[in-house]
């Protein structure tokens, strides 16, 4: 390992430390709000009149149920989004067919239309498909909205993979499916992890569409339930903060579960000596 100079190491650690403090500071306010009855003011986010009521309130049926719903929805949406986009990304990266460039551009184009104007038409669409108020409908919507980014990202990774591997697999007699599943997917683990986190979070924190599309309280996702603590006249920030903490935990767990895949690409050793 290349030695690093002490001042350099100190500087980098210092910078990371500052970034960590900045990242944590507003989160600390959320934490303080979650355990305070009264206001949290000043420079140091320290709880005033500490209380467990907000956190205890989370045990109420609807938050727990919404948590489960959200986990199911976001996980399914991430898996579906990945499945749809990884196949498309491969085809767009490798196959040469008419309409390829147009498709790629089309994926970006769908992202450029402000979502503000989309909720109502989506409602009509899902209503027409009979998927309103069904988690399946929401899963499809989230999967679809994450596909463009995922396709582009994954295509970038496919572009970077040596083509030889796929050709070798073809000569070994593997068909497209076999090549895809046995040779390519394992190599794409880092990309799938990054993209999967993105797809998951895209669904996890989404509120506007969920609130518009869902009317059955049993199908409410966590952001919808949390947002209920904000009313026309004031809001229950303590409850919102407590709920937000609950909402962040699965994300952190997911990130930890996947982070080892981010590191260390697997293409090492594929080629040459």
């Amino acid at each position, binding site marked *: 390992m290349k030695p690093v100079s002490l001042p350099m190491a100190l500087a980098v650690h210092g910078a990371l430390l500052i970034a960590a403090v900045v990242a944590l500071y507003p989160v600390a306010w959320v934490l303080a709000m979650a355990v305070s009855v009264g206001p949290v003011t000043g420079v140091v986010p320290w709880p005033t009149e500490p209380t467990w009521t907000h956190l205890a309130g989370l045990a109420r049926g609807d938050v727990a149920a919404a948590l489960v719903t959200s986990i199911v929805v976001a996980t399914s949406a991430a898996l579906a989004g990945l499945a749809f986009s990884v196949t498309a990304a491969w085809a767009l990266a490798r196959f040469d067919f008419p309409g390829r460039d147009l498709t790629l551009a089309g994926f970006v184009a769908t992202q450029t239309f402000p979502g503000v104007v989309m909720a109502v038409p989506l409602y009509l669409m899902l209503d027409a498909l009979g998927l309103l108020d069904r988690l399946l409908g929401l899963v499809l919507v989230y999967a679809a909205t994450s596909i463009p980014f995922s396709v582009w990202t994954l295509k970038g990774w496919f572009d970077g993979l*040596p083509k*030889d*591997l796929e*050709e*070798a*697999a*073809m*000569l*070994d*007699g*593997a*068909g497209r499916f*076999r090549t895809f599943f*046995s*040779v390519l997917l*394992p*190599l794409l683990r880092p990309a799938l992890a990054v993209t999967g986190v993105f797809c998951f979070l895209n669904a996890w924190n989404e509120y506007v569409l969920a609130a518009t599309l869902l009317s059955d309280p049993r199908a409410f996702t966590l952001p919808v339930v949390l947002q209920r603590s904000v009313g026309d006249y004031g809001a229950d920030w303590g409850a919102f903060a407590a709920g937000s903490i609950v909402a962040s935990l699965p994300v952190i767990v997911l990130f930890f579960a996947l982070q080892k895949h981010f590191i260390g690409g*697997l*293409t*090492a*050793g*594929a*080629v*040459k*000596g």
Partner: protein
Amino acid sequence: MASLSIRGLAVRYGATSVLDGVDLEVADGAYAILIGPSGCGKSTLLRAIAGLERPAAGTIHLGDRRVDALSPQARDVAMVFQSYALYPHMSVRRNLGFALEVRGLPRAEIDAAVEAVADQLGLRTLLDRLPAALSGGQRQRVAMGRAIVRRPAVFLFDEPLSNLDPALRADVRIELKKLHRRLGATFVHVTHDPVEALALSDQLVVLEGGRVAQSGPPRELYDAPTSAFVARFIGTPPMNLLPGLGDGHVARVDGWNRSFPTPLVGPVWVGVRPAECTLTPGSWGQVDAVEWMGAERVVTVVRPGFPPVAVQLRDRDVGIVEGGVDLSVERAVVLARL
């Protein structure tokens, strides 16, 4: 086992034509080597045989089967890539057995085949490693093993030795020759190394700018190249080409009193292999440099208006290696000069 027959093959990338009317016959069980300068389309031809490039025109037959429209999987060919293209996430064992696994062979059969090949190639102890944990030579063996396991009719090698160090290269060259004999399959091997080409091939194919310049037994190409391009490409040092003039019966070279029979009229090259001439004291040219190569010496002779001429002398022969010399040749070929 199958012969390989290619007619009028053309491959294009967009508007650029890479292969343009390639005709080639390789006999069943032959060891064919494709040689040519970088970028002349060797890899492309190999890939077209493998089915990785779709030809714009022409036919490819393996034995009696016309294969140019078939997918690579259906062609019964194996290819060793220049980059080896080992599956980085699979152990050596799985790399070797993947083709059989894909065919749905029973586990035991795959294991037996893999182990047999591993024994042949000395990979036995490496079977459970990942490619990243292998040396370059070992990776090369795995890449070859992966082809052998399948027992295909035709083996395709794209510069299989180019990533190896010289000592290893010589070893593997011999192994390849033995392997060919043992398997009795048709080999098509791409290289840009003339030594490799002469040492291994039963049939040598020189490609020039997307066409076959000459094809035949290596000795034929060595002794009787049909173009200056082929003449220069085969043999080290390359054949000396001296500018001459043909009158339809004989060709003459300036300052030389010898003439060579030729039906050509106008400018010609008179080609002389460095090993097929000797030096006598005289005034035709001046010795410019002498390189001692162990068993031989290579003497460079210069004469104004001529390219430098290389002469290969056995080291034991006492010959003139200084001052003015005359060149006497045992054999020469006359080629068109365009």
